[in-house]
């Protein structure tokens, strides 16, 4: 069974800190995605990657960057955390060859609080 693992379930950081959110998938998937989930807004795409060292901006990339040095790991970076980045962050990956990138296999999420 596909496994997408996010290293932290809860994080509390201070304004201005650099924050790393890690995501690992164990099935040699090519595509990986970072979403943030906020009440009333659903899931919004921050960044995605379709191969090692390849990345594309999603709908809300401002204030974020990503890194994909190895196929199994996709990191989301908050260069200087701000309170409006307090949110649930979800990493997701579809199986190789998945039509329209679905089903997406989601990690359990990282709830980030920026104080």
């Amino acid at each position, binding site marked *: 069974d596909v496994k997408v693992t996010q290293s932290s379930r809860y994080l509390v950081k201070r304004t201005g800190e650099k924050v790393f959110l890690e995501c690992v998938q164990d099935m040699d998937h090519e595509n990986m995605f970072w979403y943030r989930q906020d009440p009333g*807004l659903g899931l919004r795409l921050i960044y995605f990657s379709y191969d090692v060292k390849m990345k594309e901006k999603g709908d809300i990339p401002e204030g974020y960057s990503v890194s994909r040095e190895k196929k199994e790991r996709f990191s989301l970076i908050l260069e200087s955390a701000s309170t409006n980045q307090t949110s649930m962050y979800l990493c997701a990956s579809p199986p190789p060859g998945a*039509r*329209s990138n*679905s*089903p997406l296999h989601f990690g359990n999420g990282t709830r980030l609080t920026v104080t």
Partner: protein
Amino acid sequence: AQSVTQPDIHITVSEGASLELRCNYSYGATPYLFWYVQSPGQGLQLLLKYFSGDTLVQGIKGFEAEFKRSQSSFNLRKPSVHWSDAAEYFCAVGHDTGRRALTFGSGTRLQVQP
């Protein structure tokens, strides 16, 4: 750009009653459509999907959805709701290319009354 609208933020139904969750999409070509469910404290799980063919699709847990091109809709239905169906439901639209991500709606939270 594609978009998904779920007009109902919150719905409450009685256990055993029928359910319909609305979803409208905007997309320039034939859409690929999905419903995901997120139970409390759980990750998102795919309920069902539509790519082409029969416009009425069956999913897991007794759910079904109907694609209506003329109305740009993909509403989710269940004839008899169970208490365990209480969750948040997300409609999503996808592309037919391998590099694009799904676009999700804002979600509908379902409460089930005993």
